[in-house]
């Protein structure tokens, strides 16, 4: 039943996307509004198809319909309801389905949002582009990544359940969908960039149209990445949250280029400059999300998160090639129209700072991309197998990160066009004192080390600048001083400062040790006291867990555990964390007492991770800030309509 419904829905989605492309294509060619408007209604069909397919998949998972290969591979009768539901995105085919669902959601919202402007070729081309992307993803499902394939041979009576790592923390329900909302969200600005290039309407109008779309996608991607880090911290048991793993990098690289875009687009809006650059950033961001999809799903890279291999790799790579080719051809074709009407007057200006910011973000993205694909390149060139690890990324990106923090402090104080030294010193005095204060406090608290103190100082500086900005605008405009792009942006900056400071602290001041303890025995690490009490074995429906009870600092008892799932040979450690403002006590059960040998000692891993809570708070603050930035602020003036915009077309367009 599910298989028929699901496969039917996938085919329906594919056909509707293709019809959408054809109808809108003809409509654009013949300038026929009826066709354009008919084409956009296919968006609703695509959404209905995606919803139907998702419904069929969830139904099959919940009813343990093991005739479906996907359910037989990723479902199990003993898996709790939550993880059965999230099973939809715990393997390759289902994750493509989630992608298609999110994309069709964005598509319909976009079609609805621009419903009054059906006749506008810009909107037509953008819709067409999104249909192409959705046709590709539905096509993947109709072909090699079919989530509704049936099992060959006898129907199994039970399945192995999702990967054990994907069934022991509720964050699994939030991290992938948010990440996809971010990833897929960039399709809309990408579509508008393509549309602007095709129609030649390279004025700033479409930028304003897509600003909020970009912001939302960026915000979701940010939250998705932070939640991913949190999940990895809470689940994987190695005490870290970011490992520069190829799959993590695959989400981080588009984030970097999107961040660059969110900044440099302001230069374009205000001064009409950097157009090629901005378009390139948007096109690159979307291409990089597809490249990330390729890297994680084709099996070319070794990674803990990589999906099992499949044959869809070449198809995704082909799609990536197509996008890149279209982007380069379009930009090359329109390069003459993209000339800036102005130049940057002084490097000590807001636009100068944004330019520097962009160069740094681009360098950052390049460093991470290079590190991620370097093993492949090296192997292609001389056959060596090389792995690029944390030290490369930390060493290379560290200086870029510091410079970005520094810019983050200076840039909000810089005026557009040109700054005078006097003005700057007046505006920066407060943040500078905040930096000095932070360093003095840290030094008094006994913190040492050049790198972390530099990070704290720059954090204090940038945080001071953001707070100063917020205080000034709140004083002027009341609560409205906290919304709008500039002010919301400052709140995002505060979040970034928290993340950066926590990152530096956890790299510099973490302590970890493994203790072999008998029941009742205690150990001490970095001022924290842990006492091992005993172990308990618990037989649950879908797993057996052995947990050690450990009292931390004479207070609450924590229970790091080892869990064993049926069908999985490896025990999964699940850490237990005492969270605090200053630091976390992160406990893992490395090895449990062995009843068969009469061994009573347990090996407990203790890790003191400073300031972790600040990292999560910073991530949350970035999300809140993005939301506030998307909130309509006080409109000071109409978006600029610079000289390059064809006036006659616009007159009929603006509502």
């Amino acid at each position, binding site marked *: 039943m599910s298989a028929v419904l699901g496969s039917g829905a996938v085919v329906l989605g594919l056909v509707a996307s293709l019809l959408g492309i054809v109808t809108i294509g003809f409509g654009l060619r013949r300038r026929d509004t009826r066709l354009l408007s008919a084409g956009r209604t296919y968006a609703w069909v695509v959404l209905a198809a995606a919803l139907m397919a998702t419904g069929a998949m969830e139904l099959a998972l919940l009813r343990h319909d093991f005739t479906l290969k996907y359910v037989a591979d990723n479902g199990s009768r003993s898996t709790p309801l939550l993880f059965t539901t999230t099973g939809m995105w715990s393997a390759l085919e289902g994750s493509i389905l989630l992608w298609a669902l999110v994309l069709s959601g964005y598509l319909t919202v976009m079609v609805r949002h621009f419903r009054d402007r059906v006749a506008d070729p810009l909107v037509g081309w953008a819709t067409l582009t999104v249909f192409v992307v959705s046709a590709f993803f539905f096509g993947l499902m109709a072909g090699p990544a079919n989530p509704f394939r049936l099992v060959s041979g006898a129907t199994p009576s039970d399945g192995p359940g999702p990967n054990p790592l994907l069934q022991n923390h509720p964050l699994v329900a939030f991290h992938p969908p948010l990440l996809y909302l971010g990833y897929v969200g960039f399709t809309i600005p990408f579509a508008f960039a393509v549309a602007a290039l095709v129609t030649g309407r390279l004025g700033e109008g479409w930028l304003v149209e897509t600003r909020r779309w970009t912001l939302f996608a960026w915000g979701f991607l940010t939250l998705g990445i932070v939640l991913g880090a949190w999940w990895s911290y809470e689940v994987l048991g190695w005490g870290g949250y970011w490992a520069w793993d190829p799959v993590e990098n695959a989400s981080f690289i588009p984030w970097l280029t999107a961040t660059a875009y969110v900044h440099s687009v302001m230069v374009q809006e205000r001064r009409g400059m950097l157009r*090629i650059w901005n378009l390139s950033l948007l096109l690159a961001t979307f291409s990089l999300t597809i490249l990330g999809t*390729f890297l994680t799903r*084709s*099996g*070319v*890279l*070794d990674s803990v998160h*990589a999906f*099992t*291999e499949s044959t869809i*790799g*070449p198809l995704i*790579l082909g799609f*990536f*090639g197509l996008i*890149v*080719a279209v982007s*380069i*051809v379009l*930009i*090359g074709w329109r*390069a*003459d*129209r*993209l*000339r800036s*009407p102005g130049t940057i007057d002084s490097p000590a200006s807001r636009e100068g700072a944004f330019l520097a910011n962009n160069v740094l973000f681009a360098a950052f993205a390049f460093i991470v991309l290079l590190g991620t*694909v370097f093993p*492949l*390149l090296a*192997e*292609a060139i001389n056959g060596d*197998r090389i792995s690029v690890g944390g030290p490369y990324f930390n060493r290379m990106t560290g200086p870029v990160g510091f410079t970005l923090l520094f810019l983050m402090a200076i840039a909000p104080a810089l005026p557009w066009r040109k700054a005078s030294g006097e003005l700057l010193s007046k505006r920066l005095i407060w943040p500078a004192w905040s930096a000095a204060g932070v360093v003095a406090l840290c030094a008094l608290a006994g913190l040492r080390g050049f790198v972390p103190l530099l990070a704290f100082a720059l954090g204090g500086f940038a945080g001071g600048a953001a707070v100063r900005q917020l205080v000034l605008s709140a004083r002027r405009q009341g609560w409205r001083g906290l919304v709008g792009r500039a002010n919301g942006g400052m709140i995002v900056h505060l979040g970034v400062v928290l993340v950066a400071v926590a990152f530096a602290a956890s790299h510099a001041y973490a302590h970890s040790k493994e203790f072999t303890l008998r029941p009742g025995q205690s150990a001490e690490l970095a001022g924290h006291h842990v006492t091992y009490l005993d172990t308990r074995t618990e037989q649950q429906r879908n797993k057996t867990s052995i947990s050690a009870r450990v009292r931390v600092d004479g207070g609450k008892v924590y229970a790091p555990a080892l869990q064993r799932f049926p069908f*999985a*040979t*490896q025990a999964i450690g699940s850490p237990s964390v005492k969270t605090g403002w200053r630091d976390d006590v992160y406990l893992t059960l490395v090895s449990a007492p*062995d009843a068969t040998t009469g061994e009573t000692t347990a090996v407990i891993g203790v890790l003191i991770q400073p300031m972790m809570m600040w990292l999560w708070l910073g991530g949350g603050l970035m999300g809140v800030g993005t939301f506030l930035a998307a909130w309509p602020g006080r409109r000071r003036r109409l978006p600029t309509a*610079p*000289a*390059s*915009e*064809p*006036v006659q077309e616009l007159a009929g367009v603006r509502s």
Partner: protein
Amino acid sequence: MTSPIDARDLPTRRRTGVWVAVVIATVMVAFVAVLATRPSAADRQAESPLLGRPAPALIGTAVDGSKVDVSSLRGKFVLVNFFATWCVPCLQEHPELVRFAQRHQASGDATVVGVVFNDSMSSVRKYVSDKGVIWPVVSDPGGNIAFDYGVRGPPESFLIDRAGNVVSKIIGTVRADALDRLISQAKARGL
């Protein structure tokens, strides 16, 4: 176009744009080509002087005390897997080995033989019983077997065909699917 374009530098600029586009396009084509020609991480095989030659003798005592002789397994594909309990990638590949062994257990056309690499027998015994290792695990006290096979560090695996010749060497973790592909490729070549 209502923008006041400076006629003098338009042609040069346009050409710059095209050149930049061409350069970027070339780089991207090369990049895509490299990605397209990469074998799957799991299929990557290493060079070894043993490839295509008869596998070195592998006779030893299994952890459970029984005698193991790989030459008695002629007629089956044998995956000789060098591992240690201290080696993290070995732990990672273990579920894949289990999957591979289970798949071929019924048909009996392929099997796994584990060889301990530089490890204490007590931890290997615990590993074997904890992890449910269903294939023979041979101890290699003096490291002679590892030396014969040219093993530098675990995990390294060698696939031996039905006639007892080494078909491929895999450095790093193996994947059950990739191993099956290697076997079907070997069968296709008539090995």
